[in-house]
């Protein structure tokens, strides 16, 4: 049923120029299975007319020199990382045909994470997995697929499951995942099985070309050198030792039902990219810079409270509006777990000149939304500084008498407005009313930048107004 092939597949180089020594023969040992599988891959590429699109990834192992032979795009990859490298190249070369050709140490030991997750993402690639139950290149050490009792240089008394565990069955694992569409184990032990192996490899590559999904072919392959047997006996070894443990069959094939992946989106650049990034290409005319009253110029602001009181957002609001008024600004949070339920604080600088340290150590303006914050930061304030404190949460008077104190029941006012979460905006209103640090008009323009839920802008605006009113009406 097959035509005899009397020439080398065109997907191979005629002369192996990258190789040292004899450039007409491979570097593989006599009787090795790699040569056979290489040929099946090359023939399949020829028959499917995919050679020119193919990218062959050769990671560490005997097949690290795959690039000697395949007249395709080639990558040599780090040990175990071929599926990640293949992912990288396939994602940016979506029309290519990517083959990750890996041995058992590479795929089932050091690269277990990479293969499982490439399979799980359903990368449009074909993985050829050579399982010969041993580390060939490094000289016959135990592989993750080495059989129980099998002697290797690192299991000299035979693989002991109590010490080394059991041989890993990759097809069984991979086929449990949702994304892979075709998972088959084949063997090279006889002509019938070799024919199946050839068909499986071709099918996997064809499915990739059809953009159907992730395909995986495991090949039980002989390593006469590593096993220390003659090549003919090595075929028998596959049949007698390997196949009983590693059943040769199709583990998963949903290729008929699988829909081709959608075509990747075209790369967008130029003005369209600027639009996506929210960068306006035209320079807006700068507004006349708002004049901050002399006593509050170049403020160093510290805002502190419980996580959830919106202290970080209040800082962002001040920085945003300051920037819109043409000032240099910095905002820096205390970040990390303390943001989740504990205390949070941020530092804001609004400055005429370049800002050195963004960390506010000695605030000129302190906003304390709760008691621990006032206790912590009041003592750091510069003499003559101004303290805004949330009397709804702080039942104590500030201790300093060399600062200006502005008591605002921010949480209470917010609660009267129907949402205690806008206490921060009440405080913002109090700050701008008391200090004239920034104009209310610009705060209103700033909302769209620092309030992400647009339907909450009117409430926030009301809260700012309420804070302003409170300061006015109480002559603070």
């Amino acid at each position: 049923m097959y035509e005899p092939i009397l020439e080398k597949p065109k997907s191979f180089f005629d002369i192996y120029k990258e190789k040292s020594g004899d450039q007409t023969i491979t570097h593989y040992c006599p009787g090795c299975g790699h040569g056979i599988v290489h040929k099946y891959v090359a023939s399949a590429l020829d028959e499917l007319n995919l050679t020119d699109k193919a990218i062959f990834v050769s990671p560490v192992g005997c097949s690290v020199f795959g690039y000697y032979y395949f007249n395709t795009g080639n990558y040599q990859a780090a040990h175990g990382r071929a599926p990640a490298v293949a992912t990288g190249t396939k994602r940016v070369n979506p029309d290519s045909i990517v083959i990750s050709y890996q041995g058992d140490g590479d795929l089932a030991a050091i690269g277990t994470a990479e293969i499982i997750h490439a399979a799980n993402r359903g990368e449009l690639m074909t993985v050829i997995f050579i399982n010969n139950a041993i580390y060939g290149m490094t000289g016959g050490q135990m592989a993750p697929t080495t059989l129980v009792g099998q002697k290797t240089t690192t299991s000299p008394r035979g693989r002991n499951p109590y010490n080394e565990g059991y041989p890993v069955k990759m097809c069984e694992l991979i086929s449990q995942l949702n994304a892979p569409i075709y998972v088959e184990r084949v063997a090279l032990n006889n002509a019938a099985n070799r024919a199946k192996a050839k068909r499986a490899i071709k099918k996997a590559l064809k499915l990739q070309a059809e953009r159907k999904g992730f395909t995986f072919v495991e090949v039980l392959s002989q390593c006469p050198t590593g096993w220390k047997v003659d090549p003919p006996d090595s075929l028998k070894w596959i049949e007698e030792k390997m196949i009983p443990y590693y059943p040769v069959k199709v583990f998963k094939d949903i290729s008929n039902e699988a829909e081709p992946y959608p075509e990747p989106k075209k790369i967008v650049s130029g003005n369209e990219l600027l639009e996506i990034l929210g960068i306006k290409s035209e320079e807006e005319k700068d507004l006349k810079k708002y004049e901050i009253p002399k006593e509050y110029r170049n403020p160093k602001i510290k805002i502190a409270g419980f996580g959830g009181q919106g202290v970080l957002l209040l800082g962002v609001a001040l920085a945003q509006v300051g920037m819109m008024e043409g000032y240099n600004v910095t905002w820096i949070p205390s970040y990390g777990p303390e943001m989740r339920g504990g205390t949070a604080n941020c530092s804001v600088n609004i400055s005429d000149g370049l800002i050195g340290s963004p960390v506010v150590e000695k605030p000129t303006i302190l906003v304390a939304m709760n008691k621990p914050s006032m206790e912590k930061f009041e003592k750091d304030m510069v003499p003559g500084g101004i303290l805004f404190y949330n009397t709804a949460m702080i039942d104590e008077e500030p201790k300093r008498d060399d600062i200006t104190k502005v008591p605002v029941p921010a949480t209470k006012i917010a609660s009267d407005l129907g949402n205690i979460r806008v206490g921060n905006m009440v405080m913002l209103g109090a700050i701008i009313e008391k200090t004239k640090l920034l104009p209310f008009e610009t705060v209103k323009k700033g909302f769209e930048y620092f309030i992400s839920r647009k339907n909450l802008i009117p409430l926030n605006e009301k809260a700012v107004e309420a804070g302003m009113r409170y300061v006015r009406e109480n002559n603070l």
Partner: protein
Amino acid sequence: MSKELLKGNYAVIKGALLAGCVAYFGYPITPASEIAEAAAYYFPPAGRTFVQAESEIASINMVYGAAGAGVRCMTASSGPGISLKQEGVSYIAGAELPCVIVDIMRGGPGLGNIAPEQGDYHQVVKGGGHGNYKCVVYAPNSAQEMCDLTYKAFDTADKYRNPVYVLADGFIGQMMEQVDFSHLKPIEPKKLEWGVHGTPDSKNLINSIYLDPDVLEAHNRKLQEKYKKIEENEAIFENYKVDDADLILIGYGITSRILRSVVDEARNSGLKVGLFRPKTLWPLAKDEINRLVGSAKKFLVVEMSNGQLVDDIRLIVEGKIPVEFYGRMGGNVPTVDEVLEITKKLS
């Protein structure tokens, strides 16, 4: 508005996309996660690739794969993740592939903490992975520079076919500042001709294995030649009030911002203090440092580490003037006051 209030971590991604970066591969880690989040948000609508990898190791190897295609690509992490990526960085350097790696440093060693530190200097500037390679390292100190130097990093990476780091600390990543984009033109993404594109005319080889010692040595010599060229051409720095300074403070990243405030306060007290800030950590601006050795009496290097940059400064100064060191660790950021006090003592 052409200006935007932005975290440094977000500015990185906008700079990268403007520079024509087409692929981001990464893994979340505090305090660098916003970079991955911004990439996840902006890359796909721009028709570009974002993959959250299963590990730091996978992400840097995905970068290797994409970089081998001759396209602009990147990853980002923090110290513990950069440690894991070092294998891949060595392969990328060995195969002479361009890419950009952002490291937002946190406290170490081990799990350490998530507060800002500068303890990754050695692992990033000195290599970190195996073999005789070097990476260009930019050290931004503002959100604006996070954008600008990331943009520039892609050019430098392509120019030399070499991995380029953007090394910042947690504060620079987390801090919000105004960022102006008006000077950055969007660069049209392209595939460089030496890359593997899956086409008949791109059957190239991306490789770092050379079995023959002579061939590998020749490859290494070629790399060293390239590094020499980078040393001659790519060092950038910033001086602040150094001309008449007796004492010059040296620091990068957030530390340089603090030192700038120290210089101003010291000058207010009549002390002749200046600031030298390297914007590239490799290569360091050797000639400029030597020039300053001629005019200043003393250097004070301040780092949020056990003293890593100071080693390199001392190698350049060769004992000609005293090079003092002050460091904080564990995520503690030196205050202006504490550095000012040391500055006064040393003046």
